């Protein structure tokens, strides 16, 4: 029995350890306060009906006016009318500053963006004409549909947010588009690559999108980077039928290789892997070989 118990406990320990291994690391985004630390919301205010929340007697109770919005014991308007909180949790929401298709076309016309390479957030930031800031919760660019009729370039675009009309406008010209999530740490490197490389830090691995954004980035209709590529091809044809244009043939395209260039979900720069360190002075790239290091930078967790 003793042996049996011992085996069982070791098995339980082993299973628990395996479970912990498969779980995400403890970080600021997945911890929350203990249940007893939260304040309970005060719902029963019957005791306050005669005193108007001003306490008992004295100058505090008598030498004051009614509280703002007090309607003589009945429920005030502010409590009875429904709230429409357009700016609820504004400080923690993800922001996607807009860049229109007309802006992008102007950048291409004036040779500010190189269309022979994929166009991503870095190529837009490198023009110096648009500013993004992670401290303002800017999670990348929203490509908007202004100028969709004038847009004439064939590009491989990678944006963070977009609409159906923009996808149609780009694919009509024979281009491709992907919506891609980047976490703030990666975005800091993408917004200003030169400043990032000067720090000498390893290139970060990109985290997976948060739960409320996962659906968007795995939807083929949004050309999400986590969507099934075959379903994306189907969605391209469906969109062409919906808007009534002939989808240019991607197979026979001379720029097919460029148009289908995609980053790995963990990768933030083309050709450079997470964990590598860039040496700007010697014009070289350092690739650490340590096993633990590589395991960290090549796993999604």
């Amino acid at each position: 029995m003793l042996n049996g118990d011992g085996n069982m406990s070791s098995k339980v320990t082993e299973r628990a350890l395996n479970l912990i291994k498969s779980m995400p690391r403890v970080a600021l985004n997945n911890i929350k306060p203990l249940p007893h630390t939260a304040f309970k919301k005060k719902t029963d205010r019957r005791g306050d009906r005669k005193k108007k929340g001003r306490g008992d007697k004295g100058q505090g109770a008598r030498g004051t006016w009614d509280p703002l919005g007090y309607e003589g014991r009945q429920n005030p308007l502010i409590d009875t009318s429904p709230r429409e909180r357009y700016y609820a949790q504004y400080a923690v929401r993800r922001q996607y500053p807009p860049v229109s298709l007309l802006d992008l076309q102007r950048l291409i016309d004036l040779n500010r963006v190189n269309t022979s390479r994929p166009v991503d957030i870095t190529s837009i930031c490198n023009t110096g004409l648009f500013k993004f800031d992670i401290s303002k919760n800017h999670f990348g660019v929203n490509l908007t549909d202004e100028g969709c009729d004038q847009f004439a370039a064939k590009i491989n675009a990678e944006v963070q947010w977009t609409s159906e009309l923009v996808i149609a406008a780009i694919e009509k010209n024979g281009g491709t588009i992907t919506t891609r999530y980047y976490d703030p740490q990666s975005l800091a490197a993408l917004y200003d690559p030169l400043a990032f490389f000067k720090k000498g830090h390893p290139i970060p691995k990109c985290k997976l999108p948060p739960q409320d954004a996962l659906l968007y980035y795995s939807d083929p209709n949004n050309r999400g980077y986590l969507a099934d590529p075959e379903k994306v091809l189907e969605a391209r044809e469906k969109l062409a039928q919906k808007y009534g244009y002939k989808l240019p043939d991607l197979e026979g395209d001379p720029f097919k290789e460029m148009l289908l260039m995609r980053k790995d979900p963990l990768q933030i720069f083309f050709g450079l892997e997470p964990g590598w360190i860039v040496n700007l002075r010697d014009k070289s790239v350092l690739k650490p070989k340590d096993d633990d290091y590589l395991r960290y930078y090549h796993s999604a967790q």
Partner: protein
Amino acid sequence: MAALSGTTFLRIYHRVLPVFINATRSKPVIATSKYKKCILHHKLANDKVSVCGLLSVRQHSTSFSASQDELDQNDLIKDFEVSHEEFKYVEQILPSPTVPELEEQTQYPTPSGWFPPDEATQAQQKYLIRRTKNHMLPVYSHTQNTWFGTSHFVSIKKIEGDIWALEADLREHVLKTTGQKSVNTHVHEVGRFIRVRGQHRDLIAKFLLEKGM
């Protein structure tokens, strides 16, 4: 005490207070702002937190590079491969230090509606407005909020030649197209710019483009 000499942070409930400890004295000297000092003294008096309690204070550095801890050389990764080939991918990402030169387009205006200045039409004018380094017209609109309301202005910069002739042309064009009785302008001969009161940016820009600027 000697190990604690310097600035540390003392945590009291949810407050984190910077504390300066001088090792040469027998008692720590606590240098904080007046308000924080009061709280600290109060806590010391009520809860009888002795000076020895400070010894358990942990030092927090603002960043890894600011920490004074010596690095363990064994923790550093020394085994890595150096690649000069992959640096071409870095060069593709780095921004151009200057505005790239324009490429010749097959037709003007371009799909976004841009076209270069027309030198033949320019030569007929008494004045010249140079394009900016971004190949755009230096015509800007701005608002000014004051106690008596909001004022709208359009400023035209980088003017060369007869600035008063340009002002007369602008005045005539704005009055004719908008039907206003008057328009206020401000000509700066030294700064080589003109300000026009009103929301006339697009109107003025179109006028200047027709003049070949």
